[in-house]
């Protein structure tokens, strides 16, 4: 019997991508289309005293200009999750204040991009400057200016998020070693390749259609409808292909509202497309911040207590601040077993660009701190760090950050396999000959676990509709978006497998909120896990209907039937067979039946695990760190499409190397200006920087909650790589870094300091 699960079938979305035929939102052109553009703030915090658009309006080709006086004033969610605790309600389309350098203050529609751009330059804004704060410390100072009227006050995005388990005082009293440290995080951005873009058109009946590059079309629909005062059936969101999002394109951005309003005002279609610079300015970043972490240990490496204080910089708006803070805080209950924890997470407004959702969602930061500290402890206790992590790794039955008992021993399996694959013990400084010379090599490892859904922050729901057509072909309707992960192919595989048809018989319909079932959005590593399970449920219903018909025709019991590759056979009766097509075919004068299945799945949580083993080379003359090789070991349950899963891992590692060594979106501490809003100045690892990656995927702890035991993989790979690199640098040169990015200047300074200490 053949099975399509676990096979790297040809992805259905890539033919268009390799031929140039795939349609992205910015490729759509409509007759009479105008070009929209935003005027952006040149100050970080100010009240808008007045805006003069008269010169811009007089420019030939300018068709409409919108300022705060022209748009609905509705306080809305920055990220339109359904009223969840993950996001804040603190934004207006355009406000009478600006809260960061680069925020939109007006929008223009014109007959060309050049005219729209010139018109923006002709708009003059009279700002009444307000005192601005750019760091968390400034924002939390007693006399700090208040950035928002909403929220708990004191520039907090939310009330401090607290978790207590066990007895922390007792745990520290029992400790034989207590270690504490502060860990700092820079400001990486997702830097997806496709700049944000949308195209809006209204029909004569007052219905808005928006093509937009979003991960969450139904969230876009909901918030646009709410803010514009429309019923949901008057907003249609279309997204076919999209050029990456990595979490950040969950938010609803200013231009999406403004584009809709400009199209309404001009009665013409309007496209608004960010420049690359705007994608930095108006985009979303990972939360920068600090984590103070203190742990108690027995001499044998047992953890007795853990205490942490997380402070994240949210930037000018809350966006996903509450969700990221909660997930980061909760994540520190786990990974390495500890019964006594006291954790506090805070998130603070500043007058800087907005931090939002980004692959890893707070866990990148928290496990960076935790896993480096574990290495420090291992060094102090004289235990191998991999052995220390193995000893403390969470296991079957341990309570996960979501308060569920964990299934399986995924983390343990990953660490053991990595130790074996890399010959770990002989690789580390303790096991090898001392290095002389300018280039120093070292090995490090880091671990992670991550949930395959947003539960319990959001009680999610995955939906699918499966329809069998009268020729036996299958149409899968899904509301999930195709970020580029190959999820739609995985959903088709799951549907085919469950239904017993061939993979090529399943066609996927997606990307149109008027047609497909409701979906919460493609994020939280949940699409294959959650929507996949809904597909499985829907397919099972269709299968039952098909087999019932076949049973009638064959005059056997449906319970005795099997279907594989679209052929129905009778158990124990060789030779008795019927194709699916024959089973459901129309008969003379009688149409084929309607065969529809509908799956709706409310998941709780499953966790995937990973351990990354990394070799680096530090050039002690230039401070340059090169990653020489990475061996990522991931346990992700049943793998649906091995190549796509490995692709997630390799891409996550690329972004994680960037975060750790070179990527930092820099904001001028004097005036809040963006200092490196381009691909040349914001340095990501490219083809020549990327090391060989030997990806190992384990399937040792499948989830009962996922289709065929599958779990998520999207976010996991970006988490463990960071601490693995920092730990490898320590192994190479004996210097401990407790922040990212770790730059060549810092390496050189630290080496100079170390040399000075040794000389003294």
């Amino acid at each position: 019997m053949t099975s399509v699960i676990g096979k790297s079938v040809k992805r259905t979305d890539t033919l268009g991508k390799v031929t140039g035929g795939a349609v992205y939102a910015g490729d759509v052109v409509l007759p009479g289309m105008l070009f929209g553009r935003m005027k952006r703030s040149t100050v970080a915090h100010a009240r808008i005293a007045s805006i003069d658009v008269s010169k811009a309006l007089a420019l030939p080709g300018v068709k409409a200009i919108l300022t705060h006086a022209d748009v609905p004033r509705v306080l809305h969610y920055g990220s339109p999750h359904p009223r969840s605790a993950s996001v804040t309600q603190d934004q207006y389309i355009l406000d009478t204040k600006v809260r960061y350098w680069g925020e939109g203050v007006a929008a223009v529609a014109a007959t060309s991009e050049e005219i729209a751009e010139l018109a923006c330059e002709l708009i003059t804004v009279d700002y009444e400057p307000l005192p601005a704060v750019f760091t968390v410390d400034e924002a939390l100072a007693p006399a700090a200016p208040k950035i928002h009227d909403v929220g708990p006050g004191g520039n907090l995005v939310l009330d401090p998020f607290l978790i207590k388990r066990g007895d922390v005082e007792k745990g520290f009293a029992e400790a034989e070693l207590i270690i504490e440290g502060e860990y700092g995080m820079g400001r990486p951005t997702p830097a997806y390749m496709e700049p944000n873009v949308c195209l809006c058109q209204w029909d004569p009946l007052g219905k808005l259609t928006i093509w937009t590059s979003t991960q969450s079309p139904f969230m876009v629909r909901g918030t646009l409808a709410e803010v514009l005062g429309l019923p949901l059936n008057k907003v249609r969101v279309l997204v076919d292909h999209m050029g990456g999002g990595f979490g950040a394109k969950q938010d609803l951005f200013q231009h999406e509202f403004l584009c809709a309003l400009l199209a309404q005002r001009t009665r013409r279609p309007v496209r608004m497309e960010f420049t690359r610079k705007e994608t930095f300015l108006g985009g979303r970043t990972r939360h920068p911040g600090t984590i103070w972490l203190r742990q108690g240990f027995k001499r044998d490496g047992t953890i007795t207590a853990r205490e942490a204080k997380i402070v994240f910089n949210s930037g000018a708006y809350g966006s996903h601040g509450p969700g990221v803070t909660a997930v980061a805080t909760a994540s520190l209950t786990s990974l390495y077993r500890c019964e006594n924890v006291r954790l506090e997470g805070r998130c603070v407004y500043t007058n800087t660009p907005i931090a939002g959702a980004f692959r890893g969602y707070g866990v990148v930061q928290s496990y960076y701190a935790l896993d480096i500290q574990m290495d420090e402890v291992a060094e102090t206790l004289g235990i191998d760090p991999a052995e220390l992590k193995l000893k403390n790794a969470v296991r079957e039955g341990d309570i996960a950050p979501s308060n569920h008992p964990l299934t399986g021993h995924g983390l343990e399996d990953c660490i053991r396999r990595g130790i074996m694959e890399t010959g770990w013990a002989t690789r580390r400084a303790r096991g090898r000959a001392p290095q002389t010379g300018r280039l120093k090599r070292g090995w490090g490892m880091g671990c992670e676990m991550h949930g395959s859904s947003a539960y319990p922050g959001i009680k999610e729901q995955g939906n699918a509709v499966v329809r069998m057509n009268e020729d036996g072909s299958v149409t899968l309707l899904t509301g999930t978006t195709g970020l580029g992960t190959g999820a739609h192919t995985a959903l088709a595989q799951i549907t085919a497998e469950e239904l017993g048809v061939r993979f090529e018989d399943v066609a996927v319909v997606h990307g149109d909120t008027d047609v497909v079932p409701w979906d919460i959005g493609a994020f939280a590593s949940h699409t294959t896990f959650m929507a996949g399970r809904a597909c499985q449920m829907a397919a099972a219903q269709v299968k039952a209907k098909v087999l019932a018909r076949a049973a009638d025709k064959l005059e056997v019991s449906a319970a005795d039937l099997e279907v594989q590759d679209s052929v129905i056979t009778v158990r124990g009766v060789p030779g008795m067979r019927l194709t699916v097509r024959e089973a459901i075919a129309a008969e003379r004068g009688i149409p084929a039946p309607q065969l529809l299945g509908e799956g709706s799945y409310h998941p709780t949580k499953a966790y995937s695990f990973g351990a990354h083993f990394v070799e680096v080379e530090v050039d002690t003359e230039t401070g340059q760190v090169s990653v020489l090789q990475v061996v990522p070991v991931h346990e992700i349950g049943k793998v649906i499409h091995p190549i796509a899963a490995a692709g997630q891992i390799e891409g996550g590692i690329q972004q994680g190397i960037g975060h750790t060594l070179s990527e930092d979106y820099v904001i001028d501490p004097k005036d809040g200006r963006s200092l490196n809003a381009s691909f040349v100045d914001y340095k990501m690892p490219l083809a020549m920087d990327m090391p060989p990656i030997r990806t190992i995927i384990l399937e040792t702890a499948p989830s009962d909650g996922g289709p065929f035991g599958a779990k998520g993989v999207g976010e996991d790979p970006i988490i463990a790589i960071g601490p693995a690199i920092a730990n490898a640098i320590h192994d190479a040169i004996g210097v401990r870094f407790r922040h990212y990015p770790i730059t060549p200047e810092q390496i050189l300074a630290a080496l100079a300091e170390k040399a000075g200490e040794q000389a003294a």
Partner: protein
Amino acid sequence: MTAPITTVAMPVTITINGEARDLAVAPFRTLLDVLRNEAGLTGTKKGCDVGDCGACTVLLDGEPVNACLVLAVEVDGRAVTTIEGIAPEPDRLHPLQESFMALGASQCGFCTPGIIVMAKALLDRNPDPTEDEIRFGLAGNICRCTGYTKIVEAIRATARQMAAAGQPRE
């Protein structure tokens, strides 16, 4: 008062994917914008518009260029190949396109057209590139999804496959 933008279109003839196209383009328009808007070939992507990302890589008389850094009027009388013109026949893909699909070298796909065009230029010059040569050849193309692992694999696999088949590279 700022003068309105006047657009004096200039006639150019550009051979795009083998077809001579007579176009009227404003002198400030880039080849990228003309390909996407005037010629209707949206496979070539705009990732930055300032020559940093390589998503708009096309072949100009066989040499790879960032289409966003070339003015359309400069291309008058010259030949441009875009991702839409890479396949040797309408129903037969270029081996690079097959390998990119089979080996998972395309994820979100936004960088893919530029990278395939760049890879074709590379293989045209050097039919048997080493891994380092492939990585150097892609130094100007940003991919944010794949970590480049499968892109490099796909290009190497294509080179081997084309050598084995003795196919002419077109």
